[in-house]
């Protein structure tokens, strides 16, 4: 009985869709970094399947097809059971540093998530074991299926709310199971698969699980307020949006302590459960919006009327209201989430709709792309704060943020009209970091545009909880300075920096020692060694963020993270960058688990061999790669696993700049790489390379070339539309990804026996899992260029290992 490539394709599609869907579901239920951590560890299931099959190779020999069918039938069951089990567990990762019992729960969650990956991995490995001579076709089908799974997930997230989506993956798996049954399949198996199809179909319509959003996110808290009403929901691949109205819900970020009025009724907007802003109900009279005049971000209007205003990341529209209240006739509001824009206008009447008001133009899309490509110019560009303090609190260290880089601020500055102002508002944290990095980054942006004496073009205003950095390339005039002083004094804000203007005698309302913002502004004004010394001595990392290292929210230095972790949790918890720590923890877990899954079984089998048992033959096959004789295969398949993930991670980060959203970047990268690699693998089915090591060697050389070409992709975005960039990306990826599909089957042809094949699968799987957090750390600490180089080195090592093996 043969295993159909179509079945392998569907099984792979289901498992990849499950992976991406769980990343989305966890991002809604918890926070992005927990999603990353849980799914990364669950992916160990693929490697574990290889280990298990290597150990059981002899028992399974000759029965691969029926075992494949059993695994394929179990797969949809595990896909449906996973969300149910996770929903039933008291999973609260926010308590993990304090509550040891949470580790058990995390373990259970990982097991529940790992089961489908184990089964899907086992299916692919069994198929390869069953017909090694067709390894290219089967591996190609697996890659194609995974690629289709990535594209399909995007389509699913457009069509269905996220909680319905996992059942679609189960449906694909049921189809894979049906194809796995031979014509002589017994009735029970056919009935079982039919029943599974019905159950999965019902689960698509009425999922037996809810998304258990952590109680610490803003949405559950707003829902719990007395009189709270959820007005509407929206979803798309970029996020899940909910609009909640409650009498006790109010939003006025950083409101002056001198404000004595009342806020209008508001509807809170929550993206993936976190507050992103609020829509105010008003009757169209500017007086109703008095409160926006008392927000720190209103400082720019103190220096005069602004005709053309750009509100960046406009959210619920508070900066739109501010522009309206200050008499701006033309307002452009850019918001990334289509759901936020739609609900902001839908949940209130026409007069209150922020994006639909006369004079307001809504641009749904990435603000960085808009800044790069739009030819429009503005009198004021506002980067407002979003969410609450909690939203700003160390949860986004891993976010790739191309909107807050030297290049992005440079693009914004070049969109300013004469006497125009760029205003960037950030929440104040201790020790100050976001605002300090903004000061450093805008100074670098000014210098990159050729401005000298950058300090004279900066002003820094600070309230009790936020900081506004104002940049005026034409320099602040005496009239500007007087207006800002008056604004600050009436609002009880502190004017920390206004170069060239005497600030002695300016009253201080908000004590913060030391006066870091002024020190930072002075240091970056001086530039050179003074700035360097400031960055070096500052307790956290605040150097300018760039497109090459676009991690604006990553402040913790690696040595500090390790040092902090040696302190009691109560001391370091307030300072933790959870995303960064999650990557460290994921890497540690992955390495330990991979080592356990690779070394312990090998040790067990070696002991069996030593004891002279009946399974000596198995022992000789399975553990050998780990102990010298076939160590080339560890380096080879491990190198491929590391390298492939490194390259994917690098492209995901690069494509985010071009495509404007991480979800699109992930889907485009995974689908393109997997589909093209599938094509490459299938092409290789009927061909033979003179030297098998050439394949990995060619990939290594290509990666060096790509790393050089893509070292600065930012320049391209200014000129080209997204469609053209996507086409360029596709054309660029095609040759690379196609060649990357060849080394794995080329390597498989060099090994013999089902145990060795399963072993290669295990090594490759574990290396991939370790690669994901490793690539993230490399990117954070050394930039994406280094990650691509890491990919080249991995493929180079793989190639050398195989070359040496071939020679011997």
């Amino acid at each position, binding site marked *: 009985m043969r295993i159909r490539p179509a079945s392998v394709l569907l099984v792979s599609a289901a498992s990849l869709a499950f992976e991406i869907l769980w990343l989305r579901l966890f991002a809604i239920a918890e926070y992005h970094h927990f999603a990353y951590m849980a799914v990364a560890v669950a992916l160990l299931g693929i490697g574990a399947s290889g280990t298990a099959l290597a150990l059981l190779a002899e028992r399974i020999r000759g029965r691969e097809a029926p075992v494949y069918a059993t695994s394929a039938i179990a797969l949809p069951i595990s896909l449906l059971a996973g969300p149910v089990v996770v929903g039933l567990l008291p999973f*609260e990762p926010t308590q993990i540093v*304090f509550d040891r019992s949470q580790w058990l729960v995390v373990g259970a969650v990982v097991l529940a998530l790992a089961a489908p990956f184990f089964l899907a991995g086992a299916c692919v490995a069994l198929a390869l074991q069953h017909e090694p001579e067709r390894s290219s076709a089967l591996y190609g089908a697996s890659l194609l299926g995974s690629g289709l799974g990535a594209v399909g997930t995007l389509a699913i997230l457009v069509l269905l709310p996220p909680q319905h989506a996992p059942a679609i993956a189960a449906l694909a798996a049921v189809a894979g199971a049906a194809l796995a049954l031979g014509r002589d399949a017994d009735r029970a198996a056919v009935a079982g698969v039919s029943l599974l199809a019905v159950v999965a179909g019902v689960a698509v319509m009425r999922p037996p699980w809810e998304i258990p959003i952590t109680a610490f996110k803003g949405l*559950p808290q707003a829902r719990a307020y007395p009189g709270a009403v959820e007005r509407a929901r929206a979803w798309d691949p970029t996020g899940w949006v909910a609009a909640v109205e409650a009498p006790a819900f109010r939003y006025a970020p950083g409101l002056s302590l001198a404000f004595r009025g009342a806020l209008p009724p508001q509807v809170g907007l929550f993206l993936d459960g976190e507050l992103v802003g609020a829509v105010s109900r008003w009757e169209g009279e500017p007086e109703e919006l008095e409160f926006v005049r008392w927000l720190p971000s209103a400082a720019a209007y103190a220096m005069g009327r602004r005709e053309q205003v750009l509100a960046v990341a406009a959210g619920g529209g508070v900066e739109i209201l501010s522009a309206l209240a200050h008499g701006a006739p033309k307002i452009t509001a850019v918001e990334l989430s289509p759901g936020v824009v739609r609900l902001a206008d839908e949940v209130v009447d026409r007069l209150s709709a922020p994006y639909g008001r006369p004079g307001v133009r809504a641009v749904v899309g990435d603000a960085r792309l808009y800044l790069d490509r739009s030819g429009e110019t503005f009198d004021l560009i506002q980067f407002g704060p979003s969410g*609450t303090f909690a939203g700003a609190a160390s949860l986004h260290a891993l976010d790739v943020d191309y909107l807050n880089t030297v290049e992005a601020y440079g693009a914004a500055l070049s969109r300013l009209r004469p006497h125009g102002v760029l205003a960037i508002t950030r929440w104040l944290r201790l*020790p100050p970091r976001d605002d300090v990095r903004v000061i450093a980054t805008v100074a670098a942006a000014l210098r990159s545009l050729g401005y000298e004496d950058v300090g004279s073009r900066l002003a820094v205003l600070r309230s009790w*909880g936020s900081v506004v950095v104002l940049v005026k390339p034409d320099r602040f005039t005496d009239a500007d300075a007087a207006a800002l002083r008056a604004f600050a004094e009436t609002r009880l804000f502190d004017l920390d920096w206004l170069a060239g203007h005497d600030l002695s005698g300016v009253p201080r*309302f908000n004590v913060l020692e030391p006066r870091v913002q002024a020190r930072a502004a002075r240091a970056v004004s001086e530039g050179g060694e003074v700035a360097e010394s400031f960055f070096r001595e500052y307790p956290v990392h605040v150097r300018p963020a760039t497109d090459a290292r676009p991690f604006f929210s990553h402040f913790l230095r690696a040595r500090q993270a390790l040092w902090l972790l040696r302190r*009691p949790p109560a001391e370091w*918890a*307030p300072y933790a960058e959870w995303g960064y720590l999650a990557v460290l923890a994921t890497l540690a877990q992955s390495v330990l688990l991979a080592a356990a899954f690779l070394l312990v079984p090998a040790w067990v089998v070696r002991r069996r061999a030593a004891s002279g048992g009946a399974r000596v033959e198995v022992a000789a096959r399975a553990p050998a790669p780990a102990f010298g004789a076939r160590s080339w295969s560890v380096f080879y398949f491990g190198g491929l696993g590391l390298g492939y993930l490194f390259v994917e991670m690098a492209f995901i980060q690069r494509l985010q700049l071009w495509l404007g959203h991480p979800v699109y970047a992930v889907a485009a990268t995974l689908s393109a790489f997997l589909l093209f690699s599938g094509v490459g693998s299938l092409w290789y089915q009927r061909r033979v390379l003179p030297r098998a090591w050439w394949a990995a060697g060619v990939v290594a050389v290509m990666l060096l070339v790509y790393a050089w070409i893509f070292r600065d992709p930012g320049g391209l975005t200014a000129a080209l539309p997204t469609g053209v960039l996507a086409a360029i990306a596709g054309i660029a990826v095609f040759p690379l990804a196609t060649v990357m599909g060849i080394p794995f089957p080329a390597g498989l042809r060099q090994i013999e026996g089902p145990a060795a094949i399963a072993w290669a699968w295990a090594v490759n799987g574990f290396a991939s899992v370790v690669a994901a957090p490793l690539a993230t750390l490399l990117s954070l600490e050394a930039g994406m260029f280094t990650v691509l180089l890491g990919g080249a080195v991995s493929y180079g090592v793989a190639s050398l290992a195989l070359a040496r093996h071939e020679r011997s």
Partner: protein
Amino acid sequence: MRTRRTLSSRAVGALRVGSLAATIALGAVAYHARPGQESWAEERARMVSDQIVSRGVRDTATLRAMRTVPRHEFVPRAYLDAAYDDRPLPIGFGQTISQPYIVAYMTELLRPKPGDRVLEVGTGSGYQAAVLAEIVADVYTIEIFDELAKTAAARLGRLGHRNVYVRHGDGYFGWPEKSPFDAVIVTAAAGHIPPPLLEQLKPGGRMAIPVGSVYGVQTLVLVEKDREGRLTTESLLPVRFVPLLRGPR
């Protein structure tokens, strides 16, 4: 002979397993045994010395109150064993009972005196109100979640805190009929400080607001209203963490 030796080794094995199980069971019983009142008092004393005094809280009234109020009465049963741990604990509705040090630090920050009237926004478990009630004349506390307000009121009544007045409602508007207050303590700020609370603060009064992530308080903001009614704020670092500020050595 051979059989006897096997049986004997099995018996030894069973004995080993049995003793291991008994040890684990005893350990579990010991671990889960709830301390008596004296032990709770000892835990409180240890909490004050190890977590609070060591981090610089010196106000004697605050320290006395922290030694007196039985924190274990304010935590959910599931977290009883962690009642005096150096951490916040969940109490439902996404709310927490703050880390003991934060409660002490905020209490000290208010400079409470006998005879003061204090407003608390966000009763939660009622622990902060109970600590304040040990020092001041009256504590007025408002909780938006009805269930939390009811359980806190019942708990405070049961523990004999007759000078704490609990109200279910929206703390944003304060408690105007009982204002002005010598001190105001807000247990969560969502982006702005409610103007009505500033109005209800007496000249010379102090207000403390922690702002930060749910994982642990990051920043404390102290608002002071001087005798002329002028407002100033100070951003404070709650956990004395000098080594971080200087960078690791």
